[in-house]
């Protein structure tokens, strides 16, 4: 006999019972030891719905999207084709310039990318795999990352990042971001990245087959949408390999525990830090990073030792007057070419390119 104290408990139980009955397979999606997948499986179990409403496992964009959004201050846009999220810059994410570091920005881009994937129902272990990909042991890996920052946010600023992805032919997928200052809507940065598919067991690259492409393309804009629509923009530039001897170098960089993901591979953002390590103090003191482009060639393991090499592009160009810090056309941007390689065997891990602008005068 139901007494007054019971109804809520029963209702709650009823809710849960409903969900468990109709979502029998939700756990199998994420039960493997993947980073950050817990929330997803739990979510389907505790779906809050009126008792009689059936819950559909695969239609995640509706009910689940809303829940994820609330939890994460982010949401799919109305057309469901991109994802926006707001972040507040915390004090420990701010560097010597009193503004967010480029690593913070890169972390946020990674976070919002992961949240986007999660909100449309892909598991997120950093690689946003679809169901078919998981079956085939395939993961996405970054092949290129290009970030441009026009104005760095400061402590307590709120940034709004919008992200979406699109297929790039057979080879892979592209994820783009636009970073805005939430207070005035000003675009303060843009980024784009290219991803390719790799077999997580053999570590070999693989072409994207049609099933997988269909799985994720429904969440991507059909029309071409580029964060960098302008012709000949920097994000498409080929990066030359930096040869010895480099102008500047920092040798013997070692991954820290915090740099490793669950599979003990070095996380993407760590490479950015390594690239910047060999930038000389004079540049760090007087300039701020405007653009960074990184080509990821080979992964770094936890026991690797890395050398970071840097040379200014003008010193590499034959025939210029060798002035390291100004471009001939007066743009006042300093450009550098980078190489990260394994200390022991000299194999290339990453190559990169950065552009630096003079720091804005202090107010």
């Amino acid at each position: 006999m139901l007494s007054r104290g019971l109804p809520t408990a029963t209702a709650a139980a009823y809710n849960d019972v409903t969900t468990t009955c109709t979502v029998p397979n939700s756990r199998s999606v994420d039960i493997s030891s993947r980073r950050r997948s817990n929330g997803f499986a739990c979510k389907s179990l505790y779906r809050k719905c009126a008792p009689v409403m059936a819950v559909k496992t695969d239609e995640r964009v509706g009910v689940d999207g809303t829940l994820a959004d609330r939890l994460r201050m982010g949401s799919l846009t109305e057309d469901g084709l991109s994802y926006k999220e707001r972040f507040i810059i915390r004090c420990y994410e701010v560097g010597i310039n009193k503004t967010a570091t480029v690593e913070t920005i890169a972390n946020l881009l990674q976070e919002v990318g992961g949240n986007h994937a999660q909100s449309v129902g892909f598991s997120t272990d950093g690689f946003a795999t679809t169901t078919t990909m998981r079956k085939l042991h395939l993961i996405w890996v970054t092949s290129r990352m290009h970030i441009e920052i026009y104005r760095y946010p400061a402590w307590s600023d709120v940034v709004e990042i919008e992200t979406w992805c699109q297929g790039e032919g057979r080879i892979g997928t592209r994820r783009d971001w636009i970073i805005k200052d939430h207070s005035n809507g000003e675009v303060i940065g843009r980024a784009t990245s290219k991803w390719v598919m790799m077999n997580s067991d053999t570590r070999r690259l693989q072409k994207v087959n049609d099933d997988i492409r269909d799985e994720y393309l429904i969440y991507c804009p059909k029309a071409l949408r580029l964060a960098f629509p302008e012709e000949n923009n920097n994000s498409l530039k080929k990066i030359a390999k930096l040869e010895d001897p480099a102008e500047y170098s920092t040798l013997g960089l070692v991954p820290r525990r915090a740099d490793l993901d669950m599979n003990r591979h070095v996380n993407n953002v760590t490479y950015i830090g390594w690239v910047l390590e060999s930038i000389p103090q004079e540049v760090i003191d007087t300039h701020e990073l405007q653009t960074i482009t990184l080509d990821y060639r080979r992964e770094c393991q936890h026991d690797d030792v890395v050398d970071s090499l840097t040379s200014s592009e003008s010193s590499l160009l034959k025939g210029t007057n060798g002035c390291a810090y100004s471009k001939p056309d007066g743009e006042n941007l300093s450009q550098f070419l980078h190489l990260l390689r394994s200390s022991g065997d000299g194999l290339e891990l990453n190559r990169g390119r950065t552009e630096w602008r003079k720091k804005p005068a202090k107010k």
Partner: protein
Amino acid sequence: MVATAATASLFPISSSQPDSAKNSGKHGGSFGNVDPRGLKSKSRSSNGLQVKTNAQAPAKVNGTRIGVMDGLKTDDNVTSGAPRTFINQLPDWSMLLAAITTIFLAAEKQWMMLDWKTKRPDMLADLDPFGFGRIVEDGFVFRQNFSIRSYEIGADRTASVETLMNHLQETALNHVKNAGLLGDGFGSTPEMSKRNLFWVVTKMQVLVDRYPTWGDVVQVDTWVAASGKNSMRRDWLVRDCKTGEILTRASSNWVMMNKVTRRLSKIPDEVRTEIEQYFVDTPPVIDDDSIKLPKLDEHTADHVRNGLTPKWSDLDVNQHVNNVKYVGWILESAPQRVVENYELASITLEYRRECMKDSVLQSLTSLLGGDATVATGVIDCQHLLRLEGGGGEIVKGRTKWRPKYANRFKNINHFPTESG
């Protein structure tokens, strides 16, 4: 009104309806008499009532739309006196289902390190959408919420201790800023800046009961208190937003240093006037852990890690290495098998000397009780971070580790027992 309601939902309400809103106001808040340890045990025991209380809490808010989740609206219908609804007329087999569900949930929790995040009411989002934080408890406590981001998670899918300490640092700064006491830079009040003084942390203790995971929202409370004549104590309490369960307690000690002379200074009267009004008269959240430890050097250490150098991103605005980074380096020399199978239960740090970008550091660890203890129970370690070449000591530390899955087994006893 809204604030009370929010508090009501944040703390597990063990009493029933009408005065729960009032009670929780006191419960969470009478700061003067709170015994953090007492609060902790209360939270634990009331875990058993979680399912019920969460369902009831929004009803307290009398149906105002403070972002109450859709599912809970159903509960509103039920509790706000619609006596003959469909749900009330369910036959008894629903209780059996409830029991089955309870058991299933318990098992689920054990398997998946469940963290109840989906049951979290949305009131937080509306009160403090970006986690700016606000002053509570009559101006003495600063409270800020943090959502755990994916890059703050360590290899074992929980927030790293560095993440937790970063949050503590952020709330401390925001507290000072909110109180209007943020002078230039991040370490001084206006009166301190005038005198070239800044706060330096001398000791930090962090006790973690449970690590949050990705997507969790934690609520960090911080306050300051006097500590002896010339130092200040800052304490923190970190709770899980949904359940109110205490996750972490921390306590730190600060002294004043002159920027120019680099000497310690007494607290000048003008500064005392500025800050004394914020001092709370409560005992520290953690008992001071000041056991004398044997000397640690390369010969007595079990593990040594050399060549640690600060990166650009390790530096704060003063180009000093940020306090929290030391923790990462200290843990660098912790043995791999400890890091893989154990989680940090507590860490005590004594800061000796600052370190700059071009320092090269050495991290030493010694397992107190020898390697034998790795096989069972709690592990106790002693740490030293110093400049290479036998140089000055930067940080001394002490850590205690517990087996990683200990918490799961503890929680079985606290699982919702209400099956009717």
